[in-house]
């Protein structure tokens, strides 16, 4: 059974604007892919630990030693829009 997903909700979470046609197509495609992906549920894993990384490492840290930052012009070089030395974006309606 293809999986039913709330495409509008997921698109909002992912911050992706979708045309109506894209929504219909994605709903079908994701449903089909998820149906196959859901096969992971068939495997008995009750006593199996999840693996986040294939080659386990621990305690990889960096000494607290300063390195040069970018010159401000380079930091802002790729900015789509700027004002002075800050990045400029349209109005932020929601308050963090």
């Amino acid at each position: 059974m293809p999986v039913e997903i709330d495409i509008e909700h997921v698109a909002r979470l992912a911050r992706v604007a979708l045309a109506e046609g894209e929504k219909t197509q994605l709903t079908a495609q994701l449903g089909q892919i998820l149906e196959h992906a859901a096969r992971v549920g068939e495997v008995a894993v009750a006593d199996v630990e999840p693996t986040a990384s294939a080659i386990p490492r621990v305690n990889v840290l960096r000494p607290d030693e300063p390195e040069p930052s970018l010159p401000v012009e380079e930091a802002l070089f790729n900015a789509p829009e700027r004002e002075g030395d800050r990045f400029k974006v349209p109005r932020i309606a929601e308050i963090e």
Partner: protein
Amino acid sequence: MTELCDRTASDLAPLLAGGEISAVQIAESCLARVDAVEERVRAFLTVTPDVARERAAALDEYRAIGAEQTPLAGIPLAVKDVFATQGIRTTAASKILDNYVPPFDATAWSRASGDGAVLMGKTNCDEFAMGSSNENSAFGPVHNPWNLDTVPGGSSGGSAAAVAAGEAIWALGSDTGGSVRQPAALCGVVGLKPTYGLISRYGLIAFASSLDTVGMFTRSVRDAGVLLGSLAGRDPRDATSLDAPRRDYTTSIEEGVAGLRVGVVADAFGEGVQPAVAGRVRAAVDTLERLGASIGEVSLPHAAYALSAYYLIAPSEASSNLARYDGVRYGFRAPGSTDSVEMMTATRGQGFGPEVKRRVMLGTYALSAGYYEAYYGQAQKVRTLVIRDYDEAFANYDLLVSPTSPTTAFRLGEKVDDPFAMYLNDVFTIPANLAGVPALSLPCGLDDEGLPVGVQLTAKVLDEPTLLRAGHALENALGFDPTSPVAREAVS
């Protein structure tokens, strides 16, 4: 006489050292090939002739004054456009990074560059390395130099095609689920995916962090060992990079396969595998046996679930890794929005192509409240079982053998409308990414249409020396000529 651009780095290095040829000549040979074939192959998104010529000339000067040089010095290298190259446009083949110029170098590229590599340009690929045919590039597909109507494979299709067409001697790629090995197989070149973490990922534009591996395309197994030696080793900028020292990976390459225990992956010759592919790979196994390896059959019982696990883990990590493309700090910004949420949403809607949207949506869903355990959590447990399968297999075998890809190169457009059929291309390559083990694809013959078939060798974690040694022996015995029709035609 083979053109310089069609030779291997290991052939060229002594000629350079002996003063018989110059780095400028090699660079010019590759650039001439680019001029001759690029319009049809489209392997590159950015060609850097000025950078290449200037670098080659400087290296020739150093050599003239007696400076010692590495085996990479003066050899033209193509770099997949997912590696940050300071001052040179880097797009990940996405509209969303169309105009992005990184202020820093990826570690892999900076090590190669430090050893004297000559940059030919940035190669085309599937957008954000998501795809198996290179048709997901925002800048149009790459054409396979063995048959221009077919795909080169993906996602590193441009790098594979550039090497197959003689536009570069070797190339960097990235492999998250087979993105080096599968295009290497389809383009008739050698593709190496080393152990996860052996080469730093710093500056490699992330797709799926726990699976992404820097890999390379070469015309010989020895060349792969040479390039690996330059790039491998701990990088303080990548916390997941391994403590392995930088070393020469070619020292044991001539030791042959006598006594090696080779396990043939039993399930990898069944349904969906083209008969020609199964046939050539079985012939390669016979060759290994003839060379003195002992052959057995091995089963990876959870490999059947690896594809499912991969299509949960990779998109989940990708959905988070790609969140940064929002039109605020760099890259494309959709015009006309008066509100930041609207601006970001429109930027991502217009900036990402269909496959990227598909995977970002898939991953966002798989991580969202109520689904995490059933999808991502469960997939990570299946991953544990895939790793155990390998542990058991490597208790009895030194190497595993399977086809790299179930099919040879398919027609452009053939699978674009069926994402799931496309995903099946990676069924034999994905398990190695889940387990982090190294794997090598090398050409083992042609199918009836004259398209290359790749055989995949897999070794245990950090056992690249065995992988290279067996690959080298097999390559010598098979005597495959990696010169593609496009390259051959350009010479005649």
